[in-house]
């Protein structure tokens, strides 16, 4: 297993290098520069700015310089936000996104998994349809509707909760609920599917015939396997929620990482785009590795290969 992990990490490093190179080319090819603005800049001035950030050098040279810096852990300055380095921006916003993401996922699991189990066990009854329909709410109302709606109801009408900012636990409730409801739908559906798969196996019927209690069958024998799809989804979901919560962060004015993914790209803030991409890729690689390990742990027939 250690060998497997080591090998995967090594592959991961190669993936990161690959993604860095590809992104570098993509970013360089994209029209618009971090310095373009509505007011024209004199070409002489623009040339000075570009020289300051090293844009005047040929692409190959820039790539080698920046890769060298990255290997030493320095992603460079933001080309748009003065005095701020990529590392600083990520360092400030990552913990916030991690907190928000973890709370949201926890909420999603708490809502989604019991709903999914209940629906599977009581398949095709109202105990299936009702929890499944409720769990769909988070998908049917996209986050950009759910967020403002929650803010309107709990913030403005009931005046129970603050509607924006990130200053304490009470500020986390609405955004975490918005995100949590969205992901709960995924977990509910995946759990329902996984549990059904288990409950339909031959040996379950054998067990039932032998008089094993239904609760024992569900909790002791089926749960572990039934949760595999949901668990597999957990890793990418965490990576996705940390990096992709742009909408929720904007609605609730949360200084998280998600905004930077969109803003950096729209600003053509090249170094920041590269830094964020590498961070996201690293999260994906790690999460997928974790998922694979958990999968083997839950299903001993699988081997590391």
């Amino acid at each position, binding site marked *: 297993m250690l060998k497997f992990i080591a090998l995967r990490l090594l592959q991961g490093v190669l993936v990161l290098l690959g993604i860095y190179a590809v992104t570098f080319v993509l970013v360089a090819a994209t029209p618009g520069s971090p310095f373009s603005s509505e007011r024209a800049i004199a070409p002489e001035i623009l040339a000075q700015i570009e020289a300051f950030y090293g844009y005047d050098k040929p692409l190959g040279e820039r790539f080698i310089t920046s890769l060298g810096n990255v290997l030493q852990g320095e992603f460079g300055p933001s080309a748009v936000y003065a005095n701020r380095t990529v590392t600083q921006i990520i360092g400030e916003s990552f913990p916030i996104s991690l907190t928000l993401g973890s709370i949201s996922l926890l909420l999603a699991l708490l809502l989604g998994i019991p709903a999914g189990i209940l629906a599977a066990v009581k398949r095709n009854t109202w105990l299936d349809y009702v929890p499944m329909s409720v769990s769909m709410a988070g998908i049917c109302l996209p986050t950009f509707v759910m967020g403002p709606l929650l803010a309107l109801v709990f913030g403005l009408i009931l005046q129970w909760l603050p509607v924006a900012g990130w200053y304490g636990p009470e500020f986390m409730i609405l955004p975490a609920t918005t995100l949590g409801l969205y992901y709960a739908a995924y977990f509910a*559906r995946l759990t329902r599917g996984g549990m059904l798969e288990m409950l*339909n196996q031959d040996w379950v019927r054998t067990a039932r015939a032998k008089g094993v209690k239904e609760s024992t069958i569900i909790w002791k*024998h089926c749960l572990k396997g039934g949760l595999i799809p949901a668990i597999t989804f957990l890793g*990418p979901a965490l990576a996705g929620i940390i990096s992709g919560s742009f909408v929720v962060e904007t609605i609730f004015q949360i200084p998280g990482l998600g905004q930077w993914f969109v803003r950096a*790209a729209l600003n053509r803030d090249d170094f920041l785009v590269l830094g964020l991409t590498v961070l996201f890729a690293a999260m994906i690689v790690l999460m997928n590795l974790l998922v694979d390990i958990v999968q083997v742990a839950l*299903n001993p027939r699988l081997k590391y290969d």
Partner: protein
Amino acid sequence: MTDLPGSAAPGIAEEELVEGSSLWKDAWARLKKNKVAVGSLVVFTFICLFCVLGPFLSPYDSNAQNLFAGAEGPSADHWFGTDTLGRDLMVRVMVGGRISLMVGLVATVVALAIGVIYGATAGYIGGKVDASMMRFVDLLYALPFTIFVILLMVAFGRSMWLMFVAIGCVEWLSMARIVRSGVLGLKKQEFVEAAVSLGYSHSRIILRHLIPNVLGPVIVIATLTVPAVMLLEAFLSFLGLGVQPPNASWGVLINEGQANMEIYPWLLLFPAGFFAVTLFCLNFIGDGLRDALDPKSAKD
């Protein structure tokens, strides 16, 4: 017994796989018995017809404005009300539905096809091929999507097809991962080994024996992909790809309605209602399909 979860051999008889059609025939028979699924199918068909045929029957043009009237609530003239430029919302929902339904379904099918075949192949072959195929997926997954879309657009111009490419490029990735992990679990099982010893070709084993057995989670993910794709379309039109003004998809209409939900609630209610009902239908159809395709479900 506890070592069995996730690894029990599916009870598909070899003959059934050889006569692949009977699997689908049985599935259809089972699906027909599922009232909720059939009901959903009916409603979904109705929505599709409403969107496709509706604009021909309506007296209004989806882009005809009445600036003096502005936004007005539902009335006998305008059943769904009008938007802030005085356009009939019902026709706009219909026309928007055409775009959203097409994007949602086509892109999902494309993602499904690529993802399933890619994932099954990687899982089946295994070893180094699998590792490099999956690392390639990781790489694509991490590409900065916004930059990618902007670049696509600048290189190839704005077209509907490009939007399918952009969406297809991202959505097949998670599909591939799920199929691959399902196939990894299956391929060590007796029925696959039996198929191998019978000398069936690899492609036959993948298509006939492995893929049908991972369809359950695939369908679940596919039904969840549809809404994701429809909303992704709204983001793409923000970047300038996809539907262009004055036309609007459901995603764009919902986004517009959301901003004014307090004063013009109908602008949100109607498009969001259609969006939600469509998703409900697709999910229940998906669940029904999943159950119908699961050969053991009939034995309950």
